[in-house]
């Protein structure tokens, strides 16, 4: 099949890949690029939306805890973001469920929260990520999450519950208040049905609950030292949990996933920070000049042409950080974007693949 596809592309549709024809018939018909159709939209918890996606036939499923990247078009521009499916792994109808919380600066999450409707088609990348349950299940499991960090661990809990897992599970979740917790009722139901599962919610902002600490963990799961712990949440929570586990010398049993907040908008005049040219391993102080000039000053020789933003010879991939377009003043803080380095200046720390 793949051989045939290649043959057609090399001889009949060249120079355009076959997908560029197929997608005009139906966006989900493509063979190389994968797409998914939104089939259900549910807005349950405050500020969150739960989408059910029906992926095209290439979808090979996810392992509980992994994430997928989806792409949506907003104002003509395609944006991609990563989300962890919240459903259990090995779902028989091959659908994916995503719970997305609308963040104040979250372009994509806000857009989906406000505009997602059944029938909408999004780009989908295969599931990826090493933050997931091992194939041979651990003896007991602690799942700790904060805010929208709930999604990968929810998938883990649901998977274990589906499998009638026998070991002990503690599911500990931090949030602002009960109405912000997506899938709260389902979580409570799981705890009711499975005597080995303990589900606990903490609301440090509204109740007088303290944040995470050793005593709390010890009280809820005195057996935690024998468990494998999976952690996903905002930086404060991550640090607190890490401190406890390191003090207990349980570092290797703690598995965590960075919970990426949308980069805050930065002051354009800010010429601080470091510019990392990750392709060549060079790090330099940000001088506020264009990235091309800074790269050259650091001894690199990136490709360029016009040096004035018209020829696109200098395009390079910005891995992370915020850059300012010197011509339009526009700021861009999306990761993994192609930028023209002759007319882009770093704002704060920037990592560029040069």
């Amino acid at each position, binding site marked *: 099949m793949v051989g045939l596809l290649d043959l057609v592309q*090399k*001889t*009949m549709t*060249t*120079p*355009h890949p076959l997908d*560029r*024809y197929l997608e*005009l018939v139906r966006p989900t018909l493509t063979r190389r690029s994968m797409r998914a159709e939104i089939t259900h939209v549910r807005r349950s918890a405050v500020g969150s939306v739960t989408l059910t996606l029906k992926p095209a036939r290439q979808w090979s499923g996810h392992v509980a805890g992994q994430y997928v990247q989806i792409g949506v*078009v907003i*104002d*003509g*521009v*395609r*944006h991609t973001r990563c989300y962890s499916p919240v459903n259990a792994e090995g779902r028989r109808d091959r659908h994916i469920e995503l719970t997305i919380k609308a963040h104040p600066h979250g372009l994509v999450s806000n857009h989906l929260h406000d505009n997602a409707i059944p029938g909408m088609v999004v780009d989908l990348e295969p599931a990826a990520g090493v933050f997931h349950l091992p194939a041979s299940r651990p003896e007991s499991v602690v799942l700790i999450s904060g805010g929208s960090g709930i999604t990968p661990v929810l998938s883990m809990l649901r998977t274990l519950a589906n499998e009638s897992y026998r070991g002990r599970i503690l599911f500990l979740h931090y949030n602002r208040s009960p109405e912000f917790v997506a899938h709260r009722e389902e979580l409570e139901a799981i705890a009711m049905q499975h005597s080995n599962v303990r589900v606990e919610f903490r609301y440090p902002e509204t109740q007088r609950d303290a944040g995470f600490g050793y005593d709390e963990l010890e009280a809820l799961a005195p057996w935690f030292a024998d468990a494998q712990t999976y952690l996903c949440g905002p930086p404060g929570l991550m640090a607190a949990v890490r401190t406890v586990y390191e003090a207990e010398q349980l570092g290797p049993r703690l598995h965590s996933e960075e919970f990426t907040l949308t980069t805050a908008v930065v002051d354009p005049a800010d010429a601080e920070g470091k510019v990392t040219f990750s392709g060549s391993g060079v790090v330099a102080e940000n001088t506020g000049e264009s990235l091309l000039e800074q790269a050259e000053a650091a001894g690199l020789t990136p490709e360029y*042409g*016009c040096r*004035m*933003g*018209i*020829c*696109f*010879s200098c*395009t390079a991939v910005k891995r992370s950080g915020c850059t300012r377009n010197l*011509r*339009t003043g526009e700021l861009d803080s999306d990761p993994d*974007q*192609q930028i*023209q380095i002759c007319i882009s200046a770093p704002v704060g720390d920037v990592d560029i693949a040069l």
Partner: protein
Amino acid sequence: MAILTETPEGPLVLSVEQVEEIGRELDALRARVTADLGDRDREYIYRVIKAQRGLEIAGRGLLYLGFLPPFWLAGVAALSVSKILDNMEIGHNVMHGQWDWMREPTLNSRVFEWDTVCPADQWRHSHNYMHHTYTNILDMDRDIGYGILRVDEAQPWNPLRLGNPLYAFMLMVAFEWGVMGHDLEVENIVRGKKSWADVKTLLKGQSRKAGRQVLKDYVVFPALTGPLFLSTLAANFTANIVRNLWTFSIIFCGHFPSGVQTFTKEECAEETQGEWYVRQMLGSANIQGSKLFHVMSGNLSHQIEHHLFPDLPANRYPEMAPEVRALCEKHGLPYNTGGFAKQIGSVWGKLFKLALPPFLVKNSGEAGVIVMRQGQASEVGV
């Protein structure tokens, strides 16, 4: 001396302040359009792509009935239009980075390939960089005559130039192959300025790309129509030629009609953004026509706007044109435009005229526009 822009009252002198103001106004225009880009533009380019792919498939399909002359002709027409759209409104513009802002991996200037024998990466170098940065600067912009033609009086005459119209005709018929060879700079190899080793990788890329194109149009699709092999082969060949004639004509109308100004290296040293803009306007020419005509020319009928803003989506040029024109009028600058017949006629007129030795033809004379430079107020355009 170059053929220069003429204004009724003799040469026009632009002051440093005027040039700066022009620069500011064009920057502002650019910013307004950039801020407004969105769904409308996206829908536009996908509509064109759909039309192109549809015509391509229709063209290939019609050729199965190619033994009937009307079907053969319709097939050729559909394929020709498809190839023209692919090369001009889609390929040329996508590879300029005009659609990069959509972050659509398939319409990204770095990865896009077009339906012609010239590999995209080589074209991006010779065109996006060399031609668009150094537009109409003699000995810098290789599009001035493409290393074969005499299209400017400043290019020296020699007896070989007598063949000028003939060379142009041959280039027109085989235009895609000419475009392919452009980045090789064959004349520089002949003159010993470039070695064969320099061009080895270029040649490799070309044979790979051209090989696939030839295989598709002259082997696979003809074979797929079985007994109609020769009929389909002829149809595909014709479509490629039609595309060549058209693209050559549109492109030559962009910089070679009379009234277009050329520049020397010295005149353009250390240009400001405003001076760069002025050079782009003086060095380009538009073609008037219907909406369909603009689409079929990849909006290169708005060559002036394209040269000012090569990376802005071409569907915006028609609406930017009146503003650019008004700006020219405000400052007394020429805005070179005319119907297709007038512009292409003027191009061929020049190709014939410049074939002849300079003592036989009247010189076009003085600079139309003189730009006062920052600093020593030196002259541009003389």
